[in-house]
Each structure stands twice: as structure tokens, then as C-alpha cells.
């Protein structure tokens, strides 16, 4: 239970943290306003000062979070992995939910298998049921999921433990998928663990989470900090390294101020089901999509509703064994950001909800800033370059007066340099602290491969992230503008393969970036070589965006790649989960042929029997489609509309009849595609058993 002292401490921490943030913001804004107003007071200057003051908010939040995270990390114990005699929930009271949407199902099932076996080792497997909640709408994915699920259950002897449900209509995306679970089976469980398709969790961590929920009846959501894992591209490895080095610092800092009014990230978390069902249904927002209507980023809102209902939402930095996979390249990362951007901007409306706690609103604000901040940065850069250009064009000598700030008596150049240094230090200090934390700790330093390796990798990551920052700034700015202009985005599957981007598509996606970089370079050259150098990280990043993005998307190879990979995947649990099962287990691989899902479901006796059986067991409604005749097989399946194929897949009678027919037709009655699908079956196995 939460004592009043705990609650009071939470308020004190939040208030003191944001006082520090506002104090630093005020100081920076004063320095900047003073710099401009020593020369001139104009509308443009005032606009620049206003934008700067808003922009300094995320900088200062990040700065203080990093400092607090650094110091709290000095006394933090290693991740707790055991439930240390705490009471555990009763058997089968926890549902582990994995929503999937046209995913690489082999990998999803391998991750589930790793978790299952890891839980088995803890001796607490009995506490859990597992649900594969599919929203897939591609025939291929649907059929593969069924077959893969059935094989996994057979392999683990878990037919009554791992469940598979596919929604016929995927209403309201992932949030709707989980809502459907809660409404259908939620009441059977006390807790539910929500995982993403790319989540990987250790069984011991799950048991610890359950014990912590059981020990605190007012704890509504317990969020772990997922570390990035299994990156194979250069981009992925750099992100993974940064996530390992700097992530814990920010998480601890964030945890300081949010306390029991924390946030939920939508996966790798455990949720108390009863209050979730009662209080966390998502309301519709005013207006229409993309800014209104159904809430896209449901997790933040669910956390806010849980807090509103009087339950705690806590982020637990002490639980390890929680992992996720990141996007393989910068373009894929940007695509994901496009969805998140729209979702976060929608949260704007909820800032006006009187019933929500102000700590929850701070999470919304931070989420909005993550994207809207980029547009402001772009605006700031454009206006400040325009101002410098204007001054240069006027050919007038600047006659600065003394300012009001402590550095107001310095020369205007020294004042500007000092302010620049201050802002840079605020930007860079969190990284420096993350690096120092690792460099000063013998165990961490060793994990990253020693002092020299750690330093060189941190330097490499710093250069890369500096050059990539303006690229992402332009992306985010365009996403904000697109969303504000009413252009929403659909629901896409995240790419999780690692083949690398081609030059031409990258150039098409990044032409705006390259052109902006060139424009900025030319403009800054017009002003003088000094501004050109000052702005070099921005124009260079933009100008080099295509090679930067393409080359970083390539699979990582060689000594440096091995070093990065080793440094950023170093815990025993992770090795056990990934090297032990995922990387070396071929038992789930069954797609060694190229036929699509519909053809497999018709021709393959096992796929067909599993599919038909599931339709029968789930009492799927017949679609009313006529059972096809023999002539159906004279057609190329690629020429049949996906909707018709889907309707056939949904019809038990049709699928039975099609399987019966296809094997009985002679070569002349089959389109070559069907003939080839049959001819695949030779003594060389094309499907695993």
C-alpha cells in the first residue's frame, strides 16, 4: 500500500524536478533574449526568443533526468531477478498477450518459445497462459500463424496453454485487439502481460513482475525498461549501443519524478486486469482523424486512465531480462515515428481533460514535444539563419549595448559563444554522463570491451547520431505538418529484416533532406565561412543523408561490428534467450518454399487440416461464398482478388472441397502455379514436420 509519506515524496520530487527544469529554462532564455536584444528588438527577435524558450523545455528535462539518473545509478543494485519469497498469484491467473499483425511469425514463435522454456526453468510456468492475438489480414500470415502455432503447441505439449485467436475484423488496431481479449477472456485472469511481436522476456523477470504486482494491490501497471536486442545492421547496432549506454540513465531520471504516476509504453509490462477493464477503455477524441477520432497511441492514455482511477503506474528500472528489437534502418525508424507522431499529437486534446492527473499530462506534453520540437527546431534554424543573413545583407556594423544577464558586458561574439557552449553542454552532458557511468564502473566497462573500446564506440555513436539528428528533424517536422494538415497514416507492419536499403528508394525518400542541406550550405556560405562552420553538423547531416542512411542500413560485419554486437548484448539472460534458442533453433523454420498462404492452405494436407479444424472449432460463420468448381484451378491464384481468396479461406466447406479437388485433377486441368505447388513435394522435405 502507498503511505501518505510515499505520496508526499512523489509530489515533492515532481515539484522540485520541474522547478529545476523551469529555472534552467528561464536562465537560458534570459541569456538568449539578452544576446538578441543587445543588438536590436524586433518582431523577428521576439519570435525567436519565444521559440527558443519553448525549445529549451525538452533540453532541460533531458539534462536533469540524466543528472539525476547518473547519481541514482551510483547507488543502484544490479537488476533483481528473483521474487525473493514474495507471494505469487494463483495458477493460471496471468495471461501473456502477444498481439501480432502480419508479422514474421517464425520469429514471434521463437521468442514465445524462449519465454516459455525460460518460465519452465523457474518452475512457475503454471502461473501463465499465453495468447497469440492475431489481427493479420494477409492470407499468407494467417495460414502461417495457424500452422506455426499448432507446431509450437505440439512441440511444447502446450495445446491447452498457448492459445491462438484471429480477429476477423481488426477494429481499432492493437488497442482494439487487447480490448477484445479483455472482453472475451480478461475476467479469467488477475494480470495480463502485454508483449509486442518483437518483445523478448526472461521468465524470471516475468515471475518477479507478478510477485511485485501481488505485493502491491494498488499497483495497476508495472512497466519494465526493454533494451534493444538482436540488431544486425550498422544502424541497429548503433541504436542498440546507445540504448544500452544512455537508456538506463534517462529511465532512472524519469523514474525519479514520475514515481507512482508513471507511464506505460504498450509492451513489456504487466497490467492488473480488473481496473484495466473497468477504467481503461479508450474514449474517442473530438473531431476526425488524424488528430481526432480513435486514439492511436493508446498506452499513454491507458496509463493516465489507470492513474485517474487511483492505481499506481510504475516503471521498474531494477527488473532486467526485458528486450525488444528495433528498426533495422533510419527510414524504417522514421516510418515508425510517423505513426507515433500522429498518436502523440492526438494527445493534445487530453491536456484539457480536467480529471487526468497533471503528471499524466506531463507525459503527454513530453510525447508531443518529441515530434513537435523538431518542427520548432527547424523554424528556429530557419529564422535565425534568415536573421543572420539579413544582418549580413544590410552591411551595417552591429553596435551592441550592454545586456542585463551576467554575461551582458562581454563582447557580442563571446556572449554568443558562451550561450552556444552552454546549450551544447546541456545537449551533450547526458551522453557524457552515460559514458562516464560506464567508464567508471569496472563491470560495465568490461562489458563494453574495456576503456578503449567503450571510448571509441561512444565517439563513433556520437558522430553518427549528430549527423542523423537533422535528418530525423526534417522527417519529424514533415510528419507534424502532414498530421496537422489532415493526412493520417494507416496501420503498417514494422520491418524486421536486415537486408539493407537500395540507393534509389533512399534518394527518393531523402530528396527533401538533401536539397535542404544544400540550401543551408549555400545560405550559410553567403553569410560567411564562420556561420558555415557553425552550421556544419546540420547541413553536412542533411547533405550526406542518403549515404548515411543507406550505408548504415547494411548488415554489420567485421571487427567493429562484432565489437558493437558483443558490447550491446552482454547479459547472461539475453545470451541464454537469444543465442540458446532464437539464433540456433531451426525447429520453427517451415517456410522453405515460395508458395503463398492460400496455396498452402489448399494444397498442403497439414496446413489444410489445421485451417479447417480451426474454422470448425471457432464456429466461423460461412461467408456465403459458392464452393468453387473444378475450373477454379485453371486460374492463376495471383489473378483472383485477395478478397475472394480471403472469403474462400474463411469458408470451411470451400477449403475442404478445394483440397479434395486439387489433388485429383490431372496436369491439364491445373494452372501451372497449382501444378508447381503440388510438384514441390518430393523426397527433399520442403516443410518441417
Amino acid at each position: 500500500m502507498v503511505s501518505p509519506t510515499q505520496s508526499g515524496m512523489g509530489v515533492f520530487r515532481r515539484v522540485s524536478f520541474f522547478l529545476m527544469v523551469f529555472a534552467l529554462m528561464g536562465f537560458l532564455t534570459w541569456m538568449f533574449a539578452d544576446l538578441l536584444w543587445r543588438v536590436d528588438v524586433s518582431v523577428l527577435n521576439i519570435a525567436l526568443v519565444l521559440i527558443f524558450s519553448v525549445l529549451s523545455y525538452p533540453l532541460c528535462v533531458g539534462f536533469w533526468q540524466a543528472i539525476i539518473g547518473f547519481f541514482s545509478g551510483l547507488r543502484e543494485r544490479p537488476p533483481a531477478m528473483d521474487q525473493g519469497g514474495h507471494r505469487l498469484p494463483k495458477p493460471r491467473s496471468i495471461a501473456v498477450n502477444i498481439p501480432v499483425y502480419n508479422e514474421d511469425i517464425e520469429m514471434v514463435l521463437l521468442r514465445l518459445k524462449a519465454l516459455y522454456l525460460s518460465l519452465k526453468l523457474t518452475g512457475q510456468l503454471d502461473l501463465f497462459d499465453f495468447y497469440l492475438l492475431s489481427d493479420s489480414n494477409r492470407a499468407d500470415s494467417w495460414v502461417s500463424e495457424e500452422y506455426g502455432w499448432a507446431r509450437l503447441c505440439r512441440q511444447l505439449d502446450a495445446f491447452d496453454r498457448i492459445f491462438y485467436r484471429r480477429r476477423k475484423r481488426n477494429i481499432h488496431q492493437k488497442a482494439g485487439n487487447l480490448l477484445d481479449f479483455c472482453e472475451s477472456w480478461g475476467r479469467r485472469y488477475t494480470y495480463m502481460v502485454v508483449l509486442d511481436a518483437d518483445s523478448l522476456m526472461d521468465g524470471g523477470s516475468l515471475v518477479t513482475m507478478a510477485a511485485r504486482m501481488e505485493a502491491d494491490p494498488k499497483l495497476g501497471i508495472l512497466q519494465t525498461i526493454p533494451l534493444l536486442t538482436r540488431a544486425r545492421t550498422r544502424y541497429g547496432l548503433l541504436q542498440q549501443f546507445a540504448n544500452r549506454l544512455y537508456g538506463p540513465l534517462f529511465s532512472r531520471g524519469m523514474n525519479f519524478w514520475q514515481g507512482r504516476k508513471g507511464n506505460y509504453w504498450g509492451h513489456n509490462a504487466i497490467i492488473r486486469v480488473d481496473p484495466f477493464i473497468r477504467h481503461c477503455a479508450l474514449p474517442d477524441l473530438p473531431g476526425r482523424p488524424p488528430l481526432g477520432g480513435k486514439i492511436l497511441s493508446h498506452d499513454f492514455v491507458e496509463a493516465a486512465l489507470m492513474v485517474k482511477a487511483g492505481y499506481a503506474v510504475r516503471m521498474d528500472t531494477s527488473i532486467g531480462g526485458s528486450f525488444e528489437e528495433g528498426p533495422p534502418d533510419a527510414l524504417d525508424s522514421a516510418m515508425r515515428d510517423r505513426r507515433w507522431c500522429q498518436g502523440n499529437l492526438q494527445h493534445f486534446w487530453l491536456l484539457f481533460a480536467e480529471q487526468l492527473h497533471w503528471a499524466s499530462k506531463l507525459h503527454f506534453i513530453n510525447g508531443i514535444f518529441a515530434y513537435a520540437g523538431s518542427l520548432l527546431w527547424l523554424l528556429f534554424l530557419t529564422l535565425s539563419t534568415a536573421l543572420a543573413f539579413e544582418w549580413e545583407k544590410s552591411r551595417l556594423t552591429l553596435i551592441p549595448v550592454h545586456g542585463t544577464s551576467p554575461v551582458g558586458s562581454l563582447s557580442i561574439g563571446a556572449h554568443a559563444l558562451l550561450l552556444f557552449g552552454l546549450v551544447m553542454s546541456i545537449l551533450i552532458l547526458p551522453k557524457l554522463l552515460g559514458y562516464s557511468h560506464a567508464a567508471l564502473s569496472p563491470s560495465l566497462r568490461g562489458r563494453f570491451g574495456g576503456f578503449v573500446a567503450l571510448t571509441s564506440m561512444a565517439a563513433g555513436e556520437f558522430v553518427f547520431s549528430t549527423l542523423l539528428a537533422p535528418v530525423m528533424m526534417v522527417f519529424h517536422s514533415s510528419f507534424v505538418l502532414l498530421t496537422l494538415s489532415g493526412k493520417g497514416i494507416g496501420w503498417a507492419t514494422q520491418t524486421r529484416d536486415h537486408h539493407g536499403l537500395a540507393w534509389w528508394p533512399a534518394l527518393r525518400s531523402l530528396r527533401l533532406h538533401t536539397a535542404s542541406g544544400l540550401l543551408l550550405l549555400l545560405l550559410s556560405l553567403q553569410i560567411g565561412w564562420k556561420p558555415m562552420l557553425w552550421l556544419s553538423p546540420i547541413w553536412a547531416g542533411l547533405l550526406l543523408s542518403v549515404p548515411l542512411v543507406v550505408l548504415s542500413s547494411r548488415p554489420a560485419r567485421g571487427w567493429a561490428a562484432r565489437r558493437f554486437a558483443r558490447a550491446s548484448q552482454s547479459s547472461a539472460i539475453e545470451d541464454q534467450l537469444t543465442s540458446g534458442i532464437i539464433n540456433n533453433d531451426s525447429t520453427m523454420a517451415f517456410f522453405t518454399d515460395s508458395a503463398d498462404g492460400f496455396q498452402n492452405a489448399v494444397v498442403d494436407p497439414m496446413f489444410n487440416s489445421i485451417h479447417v479444424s480451426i474454422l470448425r472449432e471457432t464456429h466461423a460463420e460461412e461467408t456465403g461464398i459458392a464452393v468453387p468448381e473444378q475450373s477454379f484451378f485453371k486460374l492463376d491464384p495471383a489473378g483472383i482478388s485477395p478478397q475472394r481468396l480471403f472469403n474462400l479461406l474463411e469458408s470451411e466447406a470451400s477449403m475442404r472441397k478445394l483440397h479434395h479437388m486439387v489433388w485429383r485433377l490431372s496436369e491439364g486441368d491445373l494452372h501451372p502455379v497449382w501444378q508447381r505447388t503440388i510438384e514441390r513435394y518430393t523426397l527433399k522435405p520442403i516443410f518441417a514436420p
Partner: protein
Amino acid sequence: MEPLQLKLDHPELDDALSKAYLRVEQYLCSLRIHNKRILSELTHAILDDVRKRVLGGDAREPVQIAMDAIDQHVVSWYSGLMGLDSTAMETDRIRLSLFRADLAKQWSRYFLRTGNIPEHFLKEMREQTLRTIPESPSSATMQPELLDLGKIGKWAEDTWRLFGKWPVLGAITAGLAYLAALAFVIYFASL
């Protein structure tokens, strides 16, 4: 096993039986029978049956006869093992049983054979269903609580409703907003 007696003076029949042979072999492979010896024995046995039916006057395509023969063999074998009525058997349920018993991995030598079948195999073969979801659902309704978004929320809701009713008004407002933004930019540029 009796060897096949194909008549070489009927080249068309020979060709059709070859195709049927191939199809039978492919179907058995698709049932995950990957042992060469077992596959060959089963294929020959079924083809022999087909040959007899063709020579006995069955006018259908040998491929079709062969597939029916496989189904009949499988149904009678399965119903015999399980002591079930073969007329009520559905082949997809039997295929599912074969899958659940992991035929290919451990039991293929018993496929379509009788006598000395291990009890464990029989037990696994009895499973004819797949339960994908728990037996008894527990129904609940998640109803969103009303969030009061204050005057701004109400104003936005009303505006959207108004624009929905009068799209021209929405277009004029958007146009005016665009012109205002343009004027703002021109003003700054001229400073």
C-alpha cells in the same frame, strides 16, 4: 509385396499410371513421409490397387482413382485402429490426428500398417481437434468513461460537426488560415 504388372502394350495407360504414381508419391510426401523405403512401399501398394481398379473397368482418371484409393486406405486404417465407424470419418480430422501425433517425426513406419502399433501412438492419434481458445470465455464490457475536455474540447467537437454539415464553411476557413499564414511569412520576409 507383389510387384506391379504394368502392361507395356497400353502406352497411354502406362503414362497415366506413371502420373498417378507421381501424384501418390507427392501426396505421401506432403503427409511428411520422408523415409524413402516407406514411401516407396506405400506408393507401390496404392498403385497396385489403382492398377487393379483400372483393369477392372474404372473409367476415371488414374490420378483421381489413386487419390480416392489413398483416402480409402487412410480412412479404413485409421477407423480400424481406433475402432470407429469408417463411414463417418472425415479425412481432414484424420490428417489433423496425424499432425498431432507428429507422424513424420516418430511414427511414419506405422502409417497404413496394422499390428504392433505402440499404445502411445494410438493415444496421440485419438486427438482430432485443435482448441485454439479457452473453452469458456468470460464476458466483460469495456465502456469508456466520459472525459470532460472542457470548453476547448466542446468547441472542437462543435466546429467539426459544423464543418461536417457545411463542408464549404470548412474549406473557406482552411483557405483563410492558409492566407493568414502566407501573410505572416511575407510580413517577416519584408522586415
